[in-house]
């Protein structure tokens, strides 16, 4: 589904990713862990197509297409979903309006019919309830005045509604208390399917207790220096980055 070959990327003329390789097959859940500044968020942003990150070399294929040739919205319509580390506040744009716009825009790009308003409302209500998102929250402008946890739950709500094929979760656990973490993890887990893949970017092992990965990769200085199964995360938690880096 996703194949990254020798990816090099920079931000503000500073090289961050230095030859990253990663292959994700349908149904797999991959976790990327790494110290601060390793390039975790850069990877997420490059996948989504943020202009501030320049790709300097390498290839990314997504569903056998050249991802780097696609616009931001085309990537989204093809099933790329980024759960933002810092979801942005957009004053004046109601959350419901935004959800409807994005669902229908993606359907339109894929040549599907727009959802009728009653069907859309029903769907949102159902998913929102699952994530403990109140109707009052949905009436507010997008992310404006949301707490950190509310913003993250709103990200997962969008993920549930848009049903992407690849979910990239960028530090989704940061700023969440245990209860919120469980709600978010339940949401994510409900989406696991043989056709859907996930890329979980995290600093801590904690999230992986709730969302069990098939593969764990350790990213240091813009390269994956070690890969393994879920036990690698535990190893990392026990030994720390320093020892793993030294051993690798």
């Amino acid at each position, binding site marked *: 589904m996703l194949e990254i070959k020798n990816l090099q990327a920079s931000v503000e003329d500073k090289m961050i990713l230095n030859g990253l390789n990663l292959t994700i097959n349908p149904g797999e859940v991959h976790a990327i862990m790494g110290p601060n500044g390793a390039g975790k968020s850069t990877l997420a942003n490059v996948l*989504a*197509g*943020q*202009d*501030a990150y320049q790709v300097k070399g390498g290839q990314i294929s997504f569903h056998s297409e050249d991802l780097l040739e696609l*616009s*931001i*919205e085309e*990537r*989204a*319509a093809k099933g790329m*979903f*980024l759960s*933002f580390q810092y*979801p*942005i506040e*957009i*004053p*004046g*744009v109601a959350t419901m*309006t*935004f959800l409807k*716009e*994005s669902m229908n*825009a*993606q359907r339109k*790009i894929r040549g599907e019919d727009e959802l009728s308003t009653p069907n859309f409302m029903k769907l949102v209500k159902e998913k929102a309830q699952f994530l403990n998102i109140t109707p009052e929250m949905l009436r507010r*402008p997008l992310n404006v005045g949301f707490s950190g946890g509310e913003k993250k739950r709103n990200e997962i709500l*969008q993920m549930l509604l*848009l049903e992407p094929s690849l979910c990239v979760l960028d530090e989704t656990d940061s700023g969440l208390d245990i209860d919120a973490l469980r709600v978010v993890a339940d949401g994510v887990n409900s989406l696991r399917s043989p056709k859907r893949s996930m890329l979980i970017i995290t600093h801590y092992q904690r999230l992986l207790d709730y969302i069990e990965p098939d593969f764990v990769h350790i990213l240091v200085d813009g390269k994956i220096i070690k890969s393994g199964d879920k036990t690698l995360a535990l190893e990392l938690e026990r030994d720390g980055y320093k020892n793993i880096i030294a051993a690798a």
Partner: protein
Amino acid sequence: MAFFAAYDRHKDELPQGVAEQSRIDALNWIKSNGIPTKRVESYHYSDLRRKFSKAQNYQMSDTQISFAEIKSRPSIAAFDHVNYVPIVFMDGKLRLDLSDISKIEEKISLHSLGAMVTADRLPECLAYDFKSAKRDNAVDNLTRVMWRDGIILRIKQSIASDLPIHLIFVSTGKTDAAHFSRHSLLLAANSSATLIESHINLTNDVSFNLHHFTSMLSENSELTHFTLNSENKNAVNICRTHGIYSDGVKLNSISLAVGGAWSRREGDLICNGSGMDLKLSGAVLASAEQHVDNSYVVHHKLPENTSFQRFKNVVDDKAHAIFQGKVIVSIDAQKTDGQQMAQTILLSDDAEISCKPELEIYADDVECAHGATVGALDEDMLFYLRARGIPLKTAQRLLIHAFISEITDPLFDNLKQAADSLITKWLSQHLDN
């Protein structure tokens, strides 16, 4: 100057009587001061003389039209869901035949200024308008010389007028035609009213319209005033409001400019009381070579008033938007809260914004502030929306609409809907997929 010749040519058609002396006074003012050029600070970005030099034709038109036709114009049709009293002004003349004064509620009076002056039945409180000698504003004096008609709208004491009065200014289109009108809004103590003001043209001809509003709001009265400019791309439109406000007044003035070639809304709002809350806001959507100017002075003369000027501009193509706002706080106006905010999004590299938020403060115990920003659409917001699959143009439209709707949000539902539909229409015309 063409203007003086035009006055001589047309003065016999204009209502004179009590107005005669004031026309002469104003004419003399213009003779000695001239029509302002950009050398006059408050017209620095809007050279009135240059614009005005093209006004040639001061004749009334004889165009025949029905109210149904006016109502079917897209920008008037936008108000279809609003129940309003239509008052039609055509080429500077009140047209009762096209208006529906039967809908006017009791205890509200509406008269033609021309008719009142001709019949010498002018209410005493308006007599000042024709007597006061020192008048230093160009638009005031230009309209004083040449006005043909106007309305006198009075809301009596403690009357809450629920039905909005919709003043529809129609230019019928004879090239270079110039029309002048003067209006008075008198809200008695504890009364309230909603006024909608729309400016449209029937043709694409060049037209010049100058309107002057005197707005006298008595104790604890409340005025909501929504203005729409959706004139054609050759229309010149200049409106001034002279506001005189008493204790406890609440003003909510919201303007939306989506049309016109060259327009300027200016105002001098005088706080002659305390405890008022003045909100003055405007949204400008400008494209092509439009020139849209909002220039207001709020003069806090007495203590404990709040004023907030808030303007948002979206400027595309080679258009030029202007905001000149000024808060004057006199020495006695302690505890003034005077705020100004001007925000602009430039959509093209040829678009232009000139912004001058000014504070002139003579009292110390005040909280005054202004902010101004200029920039393009927020890149991070665009990215977020696009990452959810929303195409670029749609994302831009969504963000601009959100930006502008902060101005129109305070309107009551149906009116807000009308404003929204006009904004949506502008956006779909200028940012199509």
